[in-house]
């Protein structure tokens, strides 16, 4: 089964790195979509069928938490798992993400193994993997 994934981050280099890590994790990727903020992400979500969203928190126009809240308000979007990848590490912010229904939280800086570990749990183990499993104290499953 191939997955359509949306990567939301106002940093082009970070979007490129996340895509590279996911490809190297062995998942069968149908299409990668990108957005620079929550508003752009919602446009993509309204036009494309997506299996997973990975989003930063601190972005212009609409941040990752606002995007998450908006997705949970729509029947067609609320069940798409959202992984938050962010530099925000305060206990309160993590609680906010959990409360709003994020599937997982990963703090930047992160290792490829952290991304893969969460995707394994959310999407299932890939058949061809180049990155091993790993765990870290700086990522959480919700």
């Amino acid at each position, binding site marked *: 089964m191939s997955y359509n994934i949306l990567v939301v981050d106002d940093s082009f280099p970070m979007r*490129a790195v996340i895509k590279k890590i996911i490809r190297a994790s062995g998942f069968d990727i149908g299409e990668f979509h990108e957005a620079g903020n929550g508003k752009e992400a919602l446009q993509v979500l309204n036009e494309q069928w997506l299996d997973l969203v990975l989003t930063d928190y*601190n972005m212009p126009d609409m941040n990752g938490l606002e995007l998450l809240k908006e997705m949970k308000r729509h029947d067609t979007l609320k069940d798409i798992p959202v992984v938050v990848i*962010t*530099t925000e590490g305060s206990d*309160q912010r993590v609680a906010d993400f959990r409360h709003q229904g994020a599937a997982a939280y990963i703090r930047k800086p992160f290792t490829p193994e952290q991304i893969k570990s969460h995707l394994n749990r959310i999407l299932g183990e890939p058949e061809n993997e180049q990155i091993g499993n790993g765990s870290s104290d700086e990522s959480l499953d919700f």
Partner: protein
Amino acid sequence: MNKSAMAAAMRASISEVLEQMFFMVFDFCTPDEITGSAQNKEQTVAVSLGFQGKSDGTFILQAPLNLARSVSADFMGTAISHIRDSEATATLLEMINMLAGSTLSHYDHQAVYNLQIPRLMATGDPKQMRTQAADSITIGIRTFENRMDFHLVTD
């Protein structure tokens, strides 16, 4: 703000971010060793990120453009010849984003800080900000090829 605790948090975040995300080999310069990229002939890039919370301030990251291009190439896994100046700048903006968030988490993981969007600074702005700041901390980062400076200025 506890200045020594903040300096320690800055060093911890530099080690974490540069080693884990950017695969950089570096060591810290003492303030006396920092000659400053601006004193060289190389073109430099400076980016900043402001924050508000229990205390307010601005982080600044200064690096020679050539170093920024090298870091960007390693980060994105592409040849340096493929890196445009805009991509090198974008990588520094992401670097300061991570350094700022990581520093504040190391300093006080319970406090909520509102981070602004990182931005590119005009030439001369970093020195002016540091001169006008109530207080500042500077950490020098020395690589094989060059050095860059990570500052915190507080209001």
